[in-house]
């Protein structure tokens, strides 16, 4: 090896980097998942923060009418508690979080997110009836919106094009709440 030759060729460096990512990714996901578990088990982590201000009736969470379609759908993150080599290959599923008490919500989220950590099968867009879980889900890189009183299926339909949603399911029992319509027969090869 002389001063003029690189220590590693570009291809070798890229291969080593990819291998390092493949080793480190799952380890980081494990650490994040352990932090999530601790967070979910901490009382108050899923409580809606109280302002203590002189507030009138609470405000509503509004849904925006779907705008004219823009060419490319947006990606949805896998979340920091899971790792796969190509997350973009996983479908995007909306997960409905109904209004639950803190313990029920924590238990249901732990069930789903444990499975997601162990064997990721989708990228999630959480659609929550209340804002309570948003801060916690956001801390771990999971996408979440508050839908308020608008039904999950309505919001999923409105967001289908923006996020390339394939279906919406209930957090409680995985029941299908909405599914993307199949393409018309004439569009099939």
């Amino acid at each position, binding site marked *: 090896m002389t001063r003029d030759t690189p220590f590693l060729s570009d291809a070798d460096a890229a291969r080593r980097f990819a291998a390092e990512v493949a080793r480190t990714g799952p380890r980081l996901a494990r650490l994040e998942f352990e*932090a999530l578990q601790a*967070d979910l088990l*901490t009382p*108050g*982590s899923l409580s*809606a*923060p*109280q*302002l*203590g*201000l*002189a*507030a*009138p*009736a*609470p*405000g*509503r*969470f*509004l*849904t*925006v*009418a*779907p*705008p*004219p*379609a*823009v*060419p*490319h*759908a*947006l*990606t*949805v*993150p896998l979340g920091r508690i899971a790792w796969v080599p190509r997350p973009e290959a996983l479908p995007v599923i909306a997960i409905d979080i109904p209004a639950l008490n803190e313990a029920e919500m924590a238990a249901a989220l732990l069930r789903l997110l444990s499975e997601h950590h162990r064997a990721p099968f989708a990228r999630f867009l959480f659609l929550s009836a*209340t*804002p*309570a879980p*948003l*801060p916690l889900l*956001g*801390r771990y*890189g999971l*996408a979440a*919106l*508050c839908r308020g009183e608008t039904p999950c299926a309505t919001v999923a339909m409105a967001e289908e094009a*923006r996020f390339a949603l394939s279906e919406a399911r209930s957090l409680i029992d995985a029941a299908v709440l909405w599914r993307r319509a199949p393409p018309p027969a004439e569009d099939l090869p």
Partner: protein
Amino acid sequence: MTAGPLLLIGAEGDAGAQLLADDMAARGLYFTVADPSLPDADADPDADPPGGRLYADQDSFLAALISGTAAGGPVSVVLRRPGPLVDAAGWADGLLACARAADRRGDVRFLALTPEAAKAAADAGVPGAEVPAPLPGPAFDRRLIARVDAGEGLIRTPRGDLSLAAQNWARLRRRLRLVPDAGTGGDLADLAAFASRPLPSRALSPRPAGQPPVIVAVAMNGVGLGHVTRLLSISQELCRQSPGARVLFWCFSQASGLLAGAGFDVVQRLTARHLGCDYDDWIGWEAAAFRRFLCDHRADAVVVDAAEADPFITRALAAPDLGGTELILIRRALWPEGRDPALLETAQHCSLVLEPGDLAATRDAGPTATRHALLAGYAHVLTTPPVVLDPGTPPLTRAAARRALRLPPWSRRVVLVSLGGEELGADAPLLAEITTAAREARVGLLWAVSPLARAPAPHLVDPAALRRLYPLRPVLPGVDGLITACGYNSVHEALMGTDLPVLLAPKQHDQLDDQPARARHAAAEGLAMALLPETPADRLEVLRAFMADVRRGARTPRPAGENGAADMARLILAECAGTGAA
């Protein structure tokens, strides 16, 4: 122009479409707007709008003919003169193609922005373009006169320059009469002439007198609560000063629950960073959704608290049907010296830039204090007193505050530690030094964690001593000292109208405000003690001195000062009513 509901077709960003939309609105005509570059249900050729279609330029009409969307129903086409980059022969061919299509259809009417444009079309073989008669305007035209400098691509106002390309001309014409430089011809001269026609008073006050405004507040936070807090304070004042006013939040912060809890309707959004998606794709979606939201709610103003107005906002506000919606920027000063001054250029899109005052304003060495925007446009930049969140309830008694903190009424002296955002576990040595100094002084500690932040690891902070608190001010009567980070809200909440010992622990980061400057100012003025970054070795000694003050019950009376939220609300409401500083 045709009366009745019609469809205006023109590209976003096209000044002609913007002016035509504004003109129709001033005439009280009902219309919708379509963008020929996007697939849109409004362009359904099987659903002809009753008032017909108005194409803002001949190219849009030709494109519709080719795509088959210019189906039945009356059509009006505005024949535009060429711009500087348009080939003259190609332009003339396009006009003739329109004329041939008009002959075939028999229901096409040609319009022009000016007599000169009509003559140019006639000379090219398409006579008879009508120029809409101007509306009557006020006896005295109060608009500033601005020069259109096509060579530099600028509009030069007495108050500052604007980029020619980045404006909504409907918004411009409310304030400016545009005079092109000598030698400027073609489409740009026509646009300037049309924009400078008399403006009826109802165009200047878009909402009927006495009708409360609709304001859309954009909260850009992803994690912290700084911007949300200021917007919340201002929004409460807006509703107090204008009963019936609606403030709707377009919220990227995970603190949306706090806003709904305060009684405001919220649209929850996700940033490109949240999603990890392509930023240009994200802007496309966000601008389209935001535009639709603003139109649906007929927003009088967009108020955004940030260093600059995000491009999705300015892109949405370039829509032809949003010329009557003002953009107001709430811009906290005290940027770090090295912050990019290009962020100041966002002022050219704004009618108002409001800066909440800072106790440390005299130490501001950042771009907002030392530089001027190159493209300031017609925006007024005004400073108000500091803005703090008003709980709207009487202050808690010491006993009530200690109950809220879950402290027994008889316990030893207690210091509340609030180090901001996600950072409570980030500086472990500092936490250890605070714990050491408190233990030595036999002072208890409570650790405040933002409602959005992860709790620190148990080995750093005793979980029994953690409290999720927001805002802090109501519970301060229940503690004997405060250690706080130096963000804008934290410092002003801690130092305005309080008397307990305060120790400031500033952070340094390019994306944050100049917290060390704020801490140095407070220390120099005797308002608080500070852990200054230039003397890290003294940290434990400063903490010991602070704890000694807490132990002996020291008090430092500080003036309450005025809450700038009231001034900000007044200025915003005046802008919405068309009577503002601009």
